[in-house]
């Protein structure tokens, strides 16, 4: 049913190792992400999934390894550079700006595209106003896309968890990213919210051709929507391939059975 074309390797991670003090969070992990695909990273709690994501967009600096993003080699990414290059992400423990409305939160996602200088902004003059209105229109499209019209002016702090997650996604989408990193987008949601979120992820991938890298510890949902899956356990990669391949992988089975029973 999918009409999108999976492209070349857009992000390639080579031999990434990361440790905090003595704790080895990631050990020699390599995998790649193809353009336009949905790539999942799964694993039990504490497997190093979030650390992996933090390495990709430069929140953590790996001790070893190399990140190749669109042909550019990096020993590590920096967050600002990553954002500028087209990496957006959401957070496991929602990291919205609590003091702002939903609309303003999403608008912050446009900041890299806003060019008016401070003086123009202070006088709300010319380019500043024009920019503000243009980006508002763009943001409204995202609001419409994620079906959060009814809360656009609500302070995010007052929203229930499921909606906050959606706003978090909206803010990331507002950056019009090449790659969208989603950190447990469905954690703590009920079945209906999970279904909605799956639909949004698929729609984003489909309509905007955004590459999605997704972390989840619940295997079920991920297997349905992702093209390829990396499995981590205690900081090591134990499986990589299509959902079917991964499901058949004995290491994965034992890791999951071991972890959940």
């Amino acid at each position, binding site marked *: 049913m999918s009409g999108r074309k999976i492209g070349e390797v857009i992000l390639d991670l080579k031999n990434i190792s990361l440790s905090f003090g003595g704790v080895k969070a990631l050990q020699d992990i390599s995998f790649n992400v193809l353009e336009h695909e949905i790539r999942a990273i799964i694993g039990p709690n504490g497997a190093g999934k979030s650390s992996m994501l933090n390495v990709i967009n430069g929140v953590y600096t790996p001790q070893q390894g190399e990140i190749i993003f669109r042909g550019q080699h990096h020993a590590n990414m920096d967050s600002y550079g990553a954002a500028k290059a087209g990496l957006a*992400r959401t957070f496991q423990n929602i990291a919205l700006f609590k*003091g702002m409305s939903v609309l303003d939160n999403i*608008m912050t996602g446009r900041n890299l595209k806003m060019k008016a200088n401070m003086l123009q902004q202070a006088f709300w003059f010319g380019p500043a106003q024009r920019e503000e209105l243009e980006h508002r229109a763009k943001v409204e499209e995202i609001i419409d896309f994620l079906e959060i019209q009814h809360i656009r002016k609500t302070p995010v702090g007052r929203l229930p968890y499921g909606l906050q997650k959606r706003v978090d996604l909206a803010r990331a989408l507002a950056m019009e990213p090449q790659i969208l990193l989603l950190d447990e987008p469905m954690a703590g949601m009920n079945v209906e919210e999970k279904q909605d979120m799956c639909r949004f992820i698929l729609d984003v991938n489909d309509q905007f051709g955004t590459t999605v890298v997704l972390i989840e510890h619940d295997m079920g949902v991920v297997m349905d929507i992702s093209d390829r899956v990396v499995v981590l356990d205690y900081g090591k990669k134990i499986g990589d391939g299509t959902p079917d391949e991964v499901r058949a992988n004995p290491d994965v089975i034992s890791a999951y059975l071991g972890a959940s029973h």
Partner: protein
Amino acid sequence: MFYRENGQFKTSYKADQQVFAIPQDRWAILALVVFAFVGVPMLVDEYMFRAILVPFLILSLAALGVNILVGYCGQITLGAGASMAVGAYAAYNFMIRIDGMPALASILLGGLMAAAVGIVFGVPSLRVRGLYLAVATLAAQFFCDWAFLRIRWFTNDSSSGSVSVPDISLFGWTINSPTDKYLFCLGILVVFSLMAKNLVRGNMGRQWMAIRDMDVAATVIGIRPMYSKLTAFAVSSFYLGVAGALWGFVNLGSWEPAAFSIDRSLQLLFMVIIGGMGAISGSFFGAAFIVILPIFLNQMLPLVGSLFGLEVSIALVSHVEFIIFGSLIVFFLIVEPHGIARLWATGREKLRLWPFPH
């Protein structure tokens, strides 16, 4: 309950993003500003201007500056007084050292100088935050206190750092009567408030608030903490610098470094806490409160005392003032961390929903 919002629908983003999106508010504020310009000068006596209104306006401006930094960008400062001092002394130097320098220009240049110094003193904010930052800004405060006391060049070799300026004039309008001073400050305050509002509702303000609320997330969406924090320091110091220059030029006429001591810094911080952090209107509420409270206590306490047959000394009044200030700060932090502005906003929201409670 006086809001009748039916039919006030927005057909463009421009209309939706106005500063006062509800027409009732818009008209009320406009009426208030007109009244401030036209009505107040007709109703009020000189004492009111000198003791209350002019200090209120200038301190509001300063509180705006502090609010931008503390309330919007979340960077605590105990060195607001220092920025005011820089503004005041820089403006003074521009005025006396450059012939024919218009007063307004030197005031604004003083602000710019304060902004430049503010950036320098904002640098630690890139490495440290919270309490540590508070200490760093204290360093700025003490350094400035000392510099204007001891470095003669800044004060044009006057002893003990005290300087004075003649009456200033603006395009031929000599500002010497209390009414003139009031109107001059009011004009500046209105313009600066509008600018501040524009900044905080736009991209700049969102960046500041993003840094304040969750700096890691802000970085990840491409906000540079260095740029955001330093601009906040710069803008904040600019406002404080202009306020400092006005305080010196217009309110005092002649001043010493003590006018901008640590006490001033704390006073400004309290204004913002009590008035409301992260709300432009909070700066006005806070300034009004802090300007009026001592005067009120000075009048009231002896009266209350005499009711009970007690003599209330001036010292006692000032002590009670301390106690009340302190209690209020703690009270606001506990009960309404967003200050009077939030109370006001809640009240307004209630009126919009009246008769329903929510």
